[in-house]
Each structure stands twice: as C-alpha cells, then as structure tokens.
C-alpha cells in the first residue's frame, strides 16, 4: 500500500511543476512593464533598469522560474503592487475566510447530498425520488451568485423580524470582536512559520472563537456562514445527490444484495453495511472533484455576501493589475485542489481493499 501512496506522490510532481510554470507564465504574459506598474509612469529608464536587476527580471527565464519556485517553497510570494504589503500576509488574512466557507459548504453538500441520494435510491420512482432529482437538475443549473442573492433576499429581507432571519453580509455582527490567538495565548514572541500558522488559524474566526472559549462569537460567526455555505454548497449537493442515487442503484441491483435480502437481513443493514460501502467510491470521487467548484463558488459568493476572503481580494487584484496577488492566489488554490484530489485518491485505498492489495 505504501507503494500506492509513493507512486501517487511521484505522479503529482510534474503536475505541481506544471501548475507553478503556468502561474509563472501568466504573470509574465500580462501586458505592460511591471516597472511602471510599481514605480509609476514617471520612472526613469535608469530606475527601471535598477528595478529589473533587483527583481531578477533581466535573468534568463529558466533562472527566473527557479527563483520563483524557490520563493514559493519558502512561502514568499513577493509584495502587492497596490499597497506594497507582503502577499503572504494578505493570503493569511483572506484564505481562512474562504476555507471556512468552503469547508462549511462541503459539509452541507456532502451530508445532505448523500442523504437525499440515498432516499431517492431506496424509494426509487416515488414522489420523493422524482422531486429530489428534479431539484437536483435545477440545483445544478443555478448560478451560485444568483442563488446567494436570492437567499439574501428571502432570509434577510422577507423573513426579517422572524426567528428565521439570517444576516446577509459580513463576518460578524457589529460590536463583536475577537482577539488574535497570539494575544489570547501570549504568543507575541513567535516568528517565522510558527507565527504564520498562528495568524492563519487566528483569522479563521470559527476556530479562533472555539479555542478562545468565545461561544457568543462562535455562534454569531456560524450564523453569518449559513447563507454563503448553503449558496456555495447547493450545486455540489445536487451533483452528489445524483451520483449517490445512481451509484447506489447500480449496487442495489447486484446479486450479493439479493442474497443479503434473501438471508433476511434488515433493509438498513443491507443498505448501510453492504451497499453503501461499495457505492462510496464514485461518490467520494465526485466529492473530491466538487472541491474545485466549491472554491470557485466561494470566490463568487464572497462578493455577494461581502466576506473578506480570497474572492473579493482576487477580483480587486485583477481589476488593479496587481499580478503578484493574482499569481499567488491562483497557485495556492490550484495546489489545494491538487492536494484534495490526492486525498481522494488515497481514500480509495481505504474504501476498496482491492486497491490496497494491488
């Protein structure tokens, strides 16, 4: 089995190299001189020459790429052209928000997608099945940003004044604050990767509130996450529900299920113990593949709910031609996507003993 893991990791290397090369190339393809973008239109030729020497832009492309690769491995993504802040700091601020929305959406879509798909398969051709599958077809066809706006209208305006009201924007209600973890746990002397890690988790409001014992902030943060997570998770929910139904129906038609039923096993034992374990492989694949869609959905939905995540930062960076931010966020998101797909590949070995024994 370790051979399986090692082989998968080795196969990943050219893909990782390709991702970094594409993001490197994208930045170099942006029209215009980066010197004028950073130093301003009035920069002199001498200043630009000195700038290019400092940034290594006069080096051959393979040398520039090697430096770029080395910087990525060190977590150094350069500075934002817009406000000269370290891109790493911007990422540590913004990424946790997006990951919270993505994780929440994944939990929502996986839980309810598998549940609905299971009910549809077990009660095939019933009203529940027909309605669920019609809903899934409609769900897959909805633009996520439109769904976010519709949910905001329904839960923030139509249901205002009722217990079902949910706030339509922002991370926390006004008046609620949360201290950074470094301050709460007196870790101000931390530096380097340790500080980066603490900052990252500090900016993950739900995690921070949980470990800081701030139940009020945790409840408020989760409350503000409901609408974005439901909006982002609806499309993957529909896909997972359809896949669960078709995968389970395929398995339920097999001979060994007929045998299990003939033996007199309870239907829930047949489904949960015998059928679902074999039906899970394609479902897990779809869950893994939907991660990319969840990230994209999170990027879009943040602009709807005014959440301070990757999405709002990325769009702002594109419109202001801040290519170092665009480059950094693109490579990090792609790397996360690849990592999730790798975890999905690894999960096959646990779900299917035949793969383990190969």
């Amino acid at each position, binding site marked *: 089995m370790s051979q399986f893991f090692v082989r998968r990791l080795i196969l990943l290397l050219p893909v990782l190299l390709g991702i970094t090369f594409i993001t490197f190339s994208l930045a170099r393809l942006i029209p215009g001189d980066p010197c004028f973008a950073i130093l301003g239109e009035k920069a002199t030729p001498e200043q630009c020459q000195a700038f290019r020497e400092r940034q290594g832009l006069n080096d051959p492309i393979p040398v520039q790429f090697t430096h770029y690769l080395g910087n990525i491995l060190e977590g150094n993504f350069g500075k934002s052209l817009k406000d000269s802040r370290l891109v790493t700091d911007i990422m540590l601020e913004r990424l946790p928000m997006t990951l919270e929305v993505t994780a929440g959406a994944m939990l929502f879509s996986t839980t309810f997608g598998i549940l609905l798909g299971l009910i549809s398969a077990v009660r095939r051709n019933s009203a529940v099945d027909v309605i669920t599958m019609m809903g899934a*077809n409609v769900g897959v066809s909805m633009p996520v940003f439109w769904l976010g706006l519709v949910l905001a209208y329904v839960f923030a305006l139509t249901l205002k004044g009722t217990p079902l009201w949910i706030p339509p924007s922002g991370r926390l209600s006004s008046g609620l604050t949360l201290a950074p973890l470094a301050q709460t746990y007196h870790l101000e002397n931390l530096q380097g990767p340790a500080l980066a890690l603490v900052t990252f988790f500090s900016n993950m409001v739900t995690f921070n509130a949980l470990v800081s014992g701030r139940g009020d902030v945790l409840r408020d943060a989760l409350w503000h996450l409901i609408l974005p997570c439901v909006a982002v998770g609806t499309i993957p929910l529909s896909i997972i529900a359809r896949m669960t139904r078709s995968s389970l129906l395929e398995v339920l038609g097999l001979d060994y299920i007929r045998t299990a039923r003939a033996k007199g096993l309870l239907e829930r034992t047949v489904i949960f113990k015998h059928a679902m374990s074999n039906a899970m492989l394609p479902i897990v694949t779809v869950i893994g593949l939907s991660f990319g869609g969840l990230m994209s959905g999170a990027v879009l939905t943040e602009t709807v709910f005014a959440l301070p995540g990757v999405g709002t930062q990325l769009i702002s960076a594109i419109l202001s031609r801040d290519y170092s931010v665009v480059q950094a966020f693109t490579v990090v998101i792609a790397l996360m996507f690849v990592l999730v797909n790798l975890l999905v590949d690894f999960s096959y070995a646990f779900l299917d003993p035949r793969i383990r024994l190969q």
Partner: protein
Amino acid sequence: MSATPQTPTVLTVEPLLQAAPRTPLQNVLRRLVRHRSAQVGMVILGFLILVAVFAPVLAPYDPVKVLKDVKTRLPPCIHLLGCPADQPEHFFGIDGNRRDLLSRIIYGSRLSLEIGVATVSFAIVVGAALGAVAGYAGGWVDNVIMRLMDVLLAFPSLLLSIAIVAVLGPGLINALLAIAFVSIPVYARIVRASVLQVKEQDFVAASRALGASALGILVTHVLPNALTPLIVQGTLGIASAILDAAALSFLGLGAPPPTPEWGLMLGEERNSVFNAPHLVFLPGIAIMLTVLAFNLIGDGLRDALDPRLSQSGAKQH
C-alpha cells in the same frame, strides 16, 4: 382414371409487414425524443431559440437604449394584471440605467446561445486536434500533451478562466477565449481515448497499408468513434460555458456595459436585490432555464447514446 396435370397449389404467404430496421441514428433519436427529461429540455431550448431568432420582433425596445420619462428600477408593470394605465407598460420593469429589462433579457438569449456554441466549438476543434495528435503519435508527444492537459485540469476551471482574463484584460472576447481554453482538456481526453481504442485495430492497419494518410484515418475512422461522447460532453459543456461567462460578467471581467448579458445584468444590480428584486431574479431565472435545458438534453443524449441500451434495442429486432 387419367392423370390430369394439376396446377400445384402454391400457398403464398404475404410477407408480414416488416418495418425496415431502424438505423442506429433513428434509434438514438427515438430514445432521445421519448426521454422525459430531454423532452422538457428540448421544449425550453426550442422556446429559447425562437426568442433569440425573433428578438428584434419580440423585444419592445432597443436593449441598450436609455428610456426617457421613466424612473430607474421601476417594478414590472402589466396593465392586464392591474398596473395603472397611466404608468408605462414594461413587463419586466426598468433597470438602474433606465433600460427595458424584458428587451435586455430577450437579446441576452442570443448572446448566451452564441457564447455557449462558440466556446464549445472552439474547445472541441482544438481539443480534438490535440487529442488526435496525442493518441495517434503516442510516445513523448502523447506524454507532453496529456501532462499539459492534466495540469490545466488541476486548476478549478472558473479560477483559471479568471486568471487568464487577468492576463488578457476584461472583455467579452477575452472571457470567451479563457472559458474555451479551460475546456480544451476534456475534449482532448475524449478524442485521445477514441484514438487509442481504434488505432490498433485491423481495419486501421489495412487502411494504412492501402496508403491512407494519418489525417484520413483520423477523419474516417477515429472521429466517428469519438462523436458520441463529444456530442454529450459538448451539450453539457454549453451549459457550463454559459454559467462561466455569466460568472465572469457578474464579476466585471466579461461583457462590458451596456451589453445585454445576463450575468452582467446581475452584477450591475446586485446591490439592488432588496429594493428592486426583479432586476436580480429575472436574469437569474433566464440563466437557470437556459442551463437547465442544455443539462437535460445532455442527460437525455447520454442515455440515448448508451451502448447498453442500443444493444438491448437491437435485440428487439
């Protein structure tokens, strides 16, 4: 008794009325037309095509014309449904720039269909070419092309489109190029799989021995094999291209104002969702119905073209 020659009685049996056996294409079309979801999809798509074709006739106003004597963000006004007669009739209301929303949505159907068909056509042509070269050439050529496709597939498609638009600059053509580029790997893989399936077969070797060129073999033998999955994936690809284009326009990276693009309409009016919800709901419903139509037809095509169904169908004859 004299033996008289008897005319042998010939019992002629009228051949049973046998319908000519259906061609595979007829079988597929029959299954598609009987597929319930595909029926819904085809009705919606048919309606959409009619709206797009007859847009200049159906739209009451020019989609980009700023109307005078109307307030911004007026709600829908239909006199038959009780809207006062002194108010100007606008079935879908007026947007924030004092343009008729119904006209913009009607013309938007043209743009959406053009976007979907154009991006998928480009992606299929380029993807098929790359897949065919990769599969037929094999060796390092196959490896290089397919590893490049793997890398492109490693990115979430919308995010890669956003990154490409960041390079090319916002605009409708750049957005379409980005979406098409990102879709290429899917079609490359489909065609490559078909090439690999077919290229080692005897009839291909025979064609080669008879002097057929590689291009001739690809066109005559390989591409017909790849047609089925290409058609299914292409139909589903149109749906996702329309969604991606709407997303890019929503973010301000696609069609520029005052183009009547549904995603752009949503993006421009996103802050009006509470005071003028019709400006958000209606373009979104239009996007959803269009994408739903292509998804349902794609699902129907996939079922209709399923070889397992075609085998069972053949047995009935």
